[in-house]
């Protein structure tokens, strides 16, 4: 019985160890930072080249689309800090001046390079409207 318990325990340890090791290594490749524009702009050099989801708001009248192409240049801001972004591809319908966006991509020396299909604009209303901050709970 004792040897049996030992065997089971050893198998469990090896399995759990192997799986968590695998999980750990794949996680470090698979994860992306979720950052706001001002957090990144506090120290842009530290964030260059790291895969991330950048959260911000499209600066009013900053969207420029090259005619007859799918190339976009625009700026995103949060708390007063601004980053220029480049993107080639299809933008969602809700991508407009002032809309809240999450951009998937990397920070380069000349601004934020958005990866393909990396523009996610938040819907102005979800199934349920978010409560406005400051409204007391019930």
């Amino acid at each position, binding site marked *: 019985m004792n040897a049996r318990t030992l065997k089971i325990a050893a198998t469990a340890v090896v399995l759990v160890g192997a799986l968590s090791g695998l999980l750990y290594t794949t996680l470090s490749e698979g994860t992306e930072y979720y950052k706001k524009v001002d957090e990144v702009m506090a120290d842009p050099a530290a964030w260059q080249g790291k895969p991330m989801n950048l959260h911000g708001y499209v600066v009013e009248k900053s969207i420029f689309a090259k005619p007859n192409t799918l190339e976009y240049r625009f700026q995103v801001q949060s708390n007063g800090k601004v980053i220029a972004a480049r993107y080639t591809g299809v933008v969602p319908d809700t991508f407009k001046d002032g809309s809240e966006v999450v951009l998937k991509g990397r920070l380069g020396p000349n601004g934020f390079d958005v990866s393909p299909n990396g523009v996610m604009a938040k819907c102005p209303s979800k199934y*349920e409207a978010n409560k406005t901050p400051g409204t*007391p709970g019930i």
Partner: protein
Amino acid sequence: MPALGTFILLTAFVTCAYAIAASVAGARRRSTRLVESGIGAFYFLAALMTVASAVLVHAFVTGDYSIKYVQRYSDSALPLAYKVASYWGGLDGSIMFWVSLLAIFGSLAVYVNRDRHRELIPYVVSVIAATEMFFIFLMIIHKNPFSTFLTTPPAEGAGLTPLLQNFYMAIHPPSMYVGFVSMTIPFAFGIAALVTGHLDDAWLRAVRRWTMLGWLFLSFGLTLGMLWAYEELGWGGYWMWDPVENAGLLPWFTATAFLHSVRVQEQRGMLRVWNVTLVIVTFFLTIFGTFMTRSGVVQSVHAFGEDRELALLFTIFMVAILTFSFAWVIYRLPLLRSRHELDSFVSREAAFLANNWILLFSAFFVLFATMFPTLSEAVTGERLTVAAPFFNRWMLPIGLVLLTLTGVGPLLAWRKSTGANLVYQLKWPVLSFVVTAVALYALGVRVWSSGLCFALSAMVLGTIVQEFVRGAQVRREASGTDIMTALIGLVGRSKRRYGGYIVHVGIVLMFLGFAGEGFRQEEQALMKVGEQLTVGHFAIRHDALRVTNDAQKQMVTGHVSLFQDGKPLGTLEPAKWYFNKREQEPTTEVAIRRAVTEDVYVVLAGFDASAQTATYTVTINPLVNWIWFGFGIMALGTGIALLPERAFAFATATVPSGATGATTAVLLVCLLLPAVAHAQHLESPEARRTTVARTQLEKDLWRELICMCRTCGRKRIGDFCCAHAAKMRAEVAQLLDQGKTRDEVYQYFITQYGSQEPLGAPIDKGFNRLAWLFPYLVGASGAFAVGFVAVRWSRREHEGAATPPATAEDETLQSRLDDELRDLD
């Protein structure tokens, strides 16, 4: 009516409390009368919740906008079916819908088992009633769907989100909820068995069917969710590991594990702790899934909004469930001893065990990855996210291992497989695996994951065919009938086993569909009229862009010709729909050309109506239809396994007509779904009207006039922002047809809207300035008259009765007053 609804909820709450108290007291004092009374209260609860549902549906149908929930999720223009479906469209209603379903299902389960499992019933009643009580409590104190506006109610509803206005909305959520709710019943029986100590296999027999039924509905709901995403959302895929999707998948994993490990307990008396644990975990995961989607702890595209109080209440409930359940499991551990030990790792029970561990690991992994952003923020303060590639990387090998087990497991013998036995059983399946693998390699398939998946699928099919053929042969020799009769008799004799095999066939077909993903191709391009875009064997040509309207929406439709290897295949019409009042959230109407081999999936991603250019995203999705078809087979298999014993008893030699009729009907419904949904994409030809500016003057006017719908944010009518713009464009066209000049058109709109507002830039000419004064005069005198009358009227009555004209400020004041008054009670 809303008062009646709230009253019913309060009554239901009290009834719950009574049902719990009476049942537990009755069971402890062995008083049949008390137990019967508890059961009576439990049935009454189902009746109450049905009435409450009827009241809410009635409010939706009649448009009682004094109820906030009704006002927020519907409007008078909504088609009747969606008015009814709005019941579960929002948070408050979906909780009530959940409780109603649970009450009905619970009553059904209690009614069916009331004699056979007499000693368990009181505790089953109290566990289910306690769950209902929690949700009713949530509704009463926090999310009452019947709460009304304290101030003057709006005259019109806000309308249902266009994304929810489709066929799937009517069936996907109910199917998910039925699946979730059915999982409460095994849990209730499990807890009842633990509490009473009747831990023989009787309770398992009572819940097996319920779990299967719940599992079927959960699978159905998940498949419908995939289909919904695929046909309506327009990003070309069906599953993106969104937290809400994962919430439905988690209990599915554990329920699947349970359905397999039940076999081991029945056959060998092993895994007893394990089975109880799986039942508890499955139930916990359904609650956890509800919590995840409803409280906003994870960010998701389709979660309901953030709600901290709800999160807190749910957390308390979940901790209570876990503590209570596992305390009982630990207390009863001596009674849960295994009757046997595992004899060999090459045995069927070992295969089942492996399958269970993998399924449980999948559930754990999906849970971990879904919660990872929240966890990482809590632990390190940095929000880290994981995306679909991470999930796929893990779930792909897991899926392949599971597929292998599906092929090997059924061939292993109980207790221990001998070497000779293994060779005899595995010869043909392994051969089909090898042959398929070599053939695929020779054909040039180089996507290893998909190739492996195909080969493994061949192996599983080989296994299943072998099982059927050998079983039928044995039976034929024994009974001397023909092979078909022998087959049917075989399935009839052990329905669950062979039904299970048919479910496996369905799973294999679904895996084929998933493997097709490996060969997916996607292109996007901005196209002028006449240009072509080639994707793989297919090409599309942009023919035209048309803008049309109907009562509910404006439709921008791209007209596309599809070619395969140069041969024309017909036309496709992807579109964007802009629903009135919801112009900011256009819906994407995907055009799909379905085929057994692959789908061509065309999305109108963007457009410029005046230049007639359009941006298309074209995706080739190979084998995707096998997923839906596979589900049909799965439903058929589950249907066979679910058939009552009697259905086969009278006819082991003939197919029971009623039963197959029912299962075929289910299958047909499943297969017809896409067709029904597809019908939505058709538009009536008379609604189609080309909208291109015909003259330079018209083009100019499109740019100079502004849409007056007050939701577009002062867009030009040439921007095709909404239906109102379309109406204005039609007016412009009509006026120009009458030979009106530019100034006359301006004038028309100025008089119509009473100000210069419709004009993009004010005209600055002497005469026009005078003309502009006129509407202002009219407007000012009108306002003065209204004010005068209002003052006079309010004087005549007493002070409090004065109704000042509603302005924007008053509305905010009203809503604040509303909020504050609500805080008081």
